[in-house]
């Protein structure tokens, strides 16, 4: 990883939007559509009933959905999305116990040279099994993933499952460092982000995002710990891990951490998530790290409490 290189604008994730429940429907709350004004126009006026469109389907199923292609699916904004060059999407529900707080939808753009992978792993027969996956042109990696199951603590999905914590893995292409390292190397994947996704039926679901340097999921990742047992009763969060192409490692260099970076409710982008408890999307404006123009952040709950915030900067 070249941590000193300038951020490359074309990330794998191109559009992020947030839908929140209101009067029995999911309505548009926020979105970053800078590459796709027409798609923005098509989106802001939309709303979805339960089971309707991608956000509505996620609401209904209670777990993330990966949409590999828009055409011929229940997706409602096909024309605008296609016109914007978007090829796939993942929609992530945010549940606090059985209450849906929001749905975060990420739209991706991939071709033969630009790839990323999005996977959804679900608990079945005491293992995590792949239930959905988008791999673009990483066919070898896709084939290897179809055969994989992970037990507790094993690999990135198993590690996320057992720790119930978002995990950012580096060097996943190095032999031995990742259970599918050989195929990851062939596909050019370098970084893996694993997220525990709470579901209303309490089933274990882990979302993994695999990032390649030439089309990274994002250029900067941050994992913030907001659990009261870590940061106390005040609504705040501590940066526990992170990686930035400009600044390098973002984690505390001492153990135990000495003055780790903290975020406070309503202050800055992470503070918005802490304050509202909802996903957040921002384009430009104050609070973004130097050199970045947009970000999205996903809150992860444990039961009714906000536990982690995962932020990606594009």
């Amino acid at each position, binding site marked *: 990883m070249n941590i000193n290189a300038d951020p490359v604008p074309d990330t794998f994730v191109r559009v992020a939007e947030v839908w929140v429940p209101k009067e029995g429907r999911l309505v548009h709350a926020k979105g970053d559509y800078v590459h796709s004004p027409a798609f923005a126009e098509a989106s802001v006026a939309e709303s979805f009933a339960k089971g309707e469109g991608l956000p509505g389907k996620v609401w209904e199923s209670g777990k993330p959905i990966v949409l590999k292609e828009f055409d011929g699916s229940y997706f409602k904004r096909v024309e605008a999305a296609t016109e914007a060059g978007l090829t796939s999407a993942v929609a992530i529900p945010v549940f606090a116990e059985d209450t849906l707080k929001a749905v975060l939808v990420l739209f991706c753009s991939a071709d033969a040279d630009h790839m990323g992978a999005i996977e959804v792993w679900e608990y079945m027969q005491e293992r995590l099994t792949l239930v959905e996956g988008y791999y673009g042109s990483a066919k070898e990696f896709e084939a290897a993933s179809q055969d994989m199951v992970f037990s507790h603590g094993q690999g990135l999905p*198993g590690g996320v499952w*057992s*720790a119930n914590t978002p995990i950012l893995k580096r060097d996943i292409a190095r*032999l*031995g460092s990742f259970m599918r390292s050989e195929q990851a190397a062939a596909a050019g994947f370098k970084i893996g982000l694993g997220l525990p996704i709470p579901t209303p039926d309490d089933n274990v679901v882990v979302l993994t995002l695999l990032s390649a340097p030439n089309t990274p999921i994002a250029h900067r990742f941050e994992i913030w710990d907001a659990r009261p*047992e*870590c940061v106390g009763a005040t609504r705040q969060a501590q940066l526990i891990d992170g990686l930035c192409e400009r600044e390098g490692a973002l984690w505390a260099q001492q153990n135990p951490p000495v003055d780790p970076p903290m975020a406070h409710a309503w202050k800055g982008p992470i503070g918005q998530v802490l304050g509202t408890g909802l996903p957040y999307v921002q384009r430009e404006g104050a609070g973004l790290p130097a050199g970045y123009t947009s970000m999205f952040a996903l809150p992860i709950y444990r039961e009714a409490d906000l536990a982690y915030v995962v932020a990606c900067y594009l």
Partner: protein
Amino acid sequence: MQKMVIIGAGMASGRMLEHIHESDPDAFDVTIFNAEPRGNYNRIMLSPVLAGDRSFEEIVTHDDNWYADNNITTRFGERVTGVDRERKVVIGEKGEVPYDKLILATGSSPFIIPIPGHDLPGVVGYRDLEDTDAMIDASAIRGSSAVVIGGGLLGLEAAAGLRMRGMEVTVLHIAGHLMDRQLDETAGYLLKLDLEKRGIKVITEANTKEIIGNGKVEKVLLDDGTELAADIVVMAAGIRPAVQVGRDAGLDVGRAIKVNAQMCTSDPDIFAVGECVEFNENIFGLVAPLYDQAKVLANTLLGKEDVFTVRELSTKLKVTGCDLFSAGDFAEGEGREDIVFRDPKRRVYKRLIIENDRLIGAVMYGDTADSNWFFGLIKDGTDIEEMRETLIFGPSFQGGGAAASDPLAAVAALPLEAEICGCNGVCKGDIIKAIEGGVTTLDDVRTKTKASASCGTCTGLVEQVLAVSLGDDFEIKAEKPVCKCTDLTHEDVRRLIKAQELKTQPAVWQELAWKTPNGCHVCRPAINFYLLSDWPLDYQDDLQSRFVNERNHANIQKDGTYSVMPRMWGGMTTPDELIAVANAAKKFDAAVKVTGGQRIDLLGIKKEDLPEIWSDLNNAGMVSGHGYTKGLRTVKTCVGTDWCRFGTQDSTGLGIKLEKKLWGSWTPHKVKLGVSGCPRNCAEATCKDVGIICVDSGYQISVAGAAGMDVKMTESLVDVATEAEVEEWVTAFVQLYRENAKYLDRAYKWVAKVGLDWVKEELSDPDTRKALVERFDISQSVYQKDPWADHVSNRAEQYKHLADLTLEAVT
């Protein structure tokens, strides 16, 4: 410009160089040797690299450019072979370098336990990038196995990393709980749960005997015969300061290179810093004091005054998702007071140790939010008297607001599938469902679910489920708890130990929200009994949780001596046994008493003589009579058909059979049996816990008699035709009593509580009877052993005087 040579490019010397270059970058012409072929990196972050949570590049502190930018000559990958103090030169493999000031920063080496096979390929320490790479390479083979020897910080981080990479991992730890130097038993128990949740197998009290392999590691053998497959063995059994260079140079070396408070060794031009240092008999392994030393050394070298002092340290395990904190002194001791908070549902445990109104130690698991505040109180020696009541709740509770532990925490934390009523197989979820359906009283629950409708020992728990669900709308009848350590009753605890499959004392303390770190003299014996009776194969009897008589296997008398009473099966003895008893009585000057239980008691035995008298009696074929236990005491018999004109059956023979079946088993209180050969009842069977009256048609079994503070006749349980049936029914009754009664309730008290009808109902089912006997037999496979022989062989030391004070004065 003075010439400085540094041996070792680790974190301490790296930090020292940073300080020097910040203050006076031109002060020294620096040459730095490092045996590793690289410069300084953040060694403590190797485990996240192993786990894949960091890349090595991320943990490099000083790269080649940094050394170049600061004009430091690097000799990386070159070992130092000696130091010539007279000529003031460091001798490297590739040549000598003169110095004005020499800094030894040689760090430490992993301790490799010298067991057979320790030098096989595949056995690695855990110290540097090469070790980390070896582990990563080993994990590349799908399905490979790793054994980590050492359950300390480093070993557990290695284990978590290897598991994350997909290996099957077993951690072997020689002590009773993980991280025993940093954590107490409960925190160690929670950590073990967390690691097991990650698929890591943990074996405590594990003694590694040998590492086996043909040309490379293949398996690890423990001294109990366990074999563990291993493609790699990681030795994480501690570190040893690397002092060879210093020692060869003739410096003062103790456990490490001795330095003063300015980090100067016995040579005024040679300094030492980091893990290779000994200061005031302390050696160092954590990074914080190393950085302190680095600062002091930099100042010293720059001619500024500075003094190194040892400070309090805290510990954090770098395993994602494991939140633990430990600082200060957490050993129990005179004048120390514990404050404990547990939340079983959130798996939270906090313990503060206070001495003289000062916080001196803290252990936390699962909730470490306030750890820095507590650490500050420890470091500063703050007087905490004013905030003692709310101290455990952290800084936000100080100066107002009170909080208390939740007496319903244990039941609230129970999963829905936890069985509340063992008699009728009713789970917590069933009761909650009934409550959701409109049930609001205990009677309604009984009607609707059958919970608490049989023996009734789960009543307290059912009421707590009602209280948890209905809140203030339900009022629990106040029942007496086990002791001040808990709000739960004995019956609650028994039920929860079964329902939650709690198999260790720390598991009970934590999951049942005990208010003390590890119980008290009242609850420990009870919990010890419940655990050994419910989980004979899993739980290990804890002698420290027994009353003194049971610990010493003899009854202590009013003058401090002990009584010794061998078993006389069914009251029968032989001339040889009597001679052995008489010889022992003479040898140890014992008073001799014939007891009401048809045995002979030798009184007045000194503690230090116990092993010898037991050995003498063992040699005559006699075993302990357990006259001191909560267990089977005697089986009193009459002479039966062998001698008596009225005898209807072989009562003596039956009594001996029963005694041989039941001896050695632990019970809630003592158990006495009587077998009379006819209704004349010469063995007084009808005032025993279990009495058998032989009649022409067979045997009348009755139970729940008493002849002590209370006098009560037994009540009929069943009439049976054969000795085999007697044995089955009596064994099943004793096991039912073992499994259900409150500790220290005699059988008659227990039967009064649960009702004889329930006992009859349970035992009248042949399958239930059979299962009870099977469980009793399993327990006996562990516990039916003569404690005298065991103590003579294994524990004789504990009976010796601590010191011999009879030596004559020197004249």
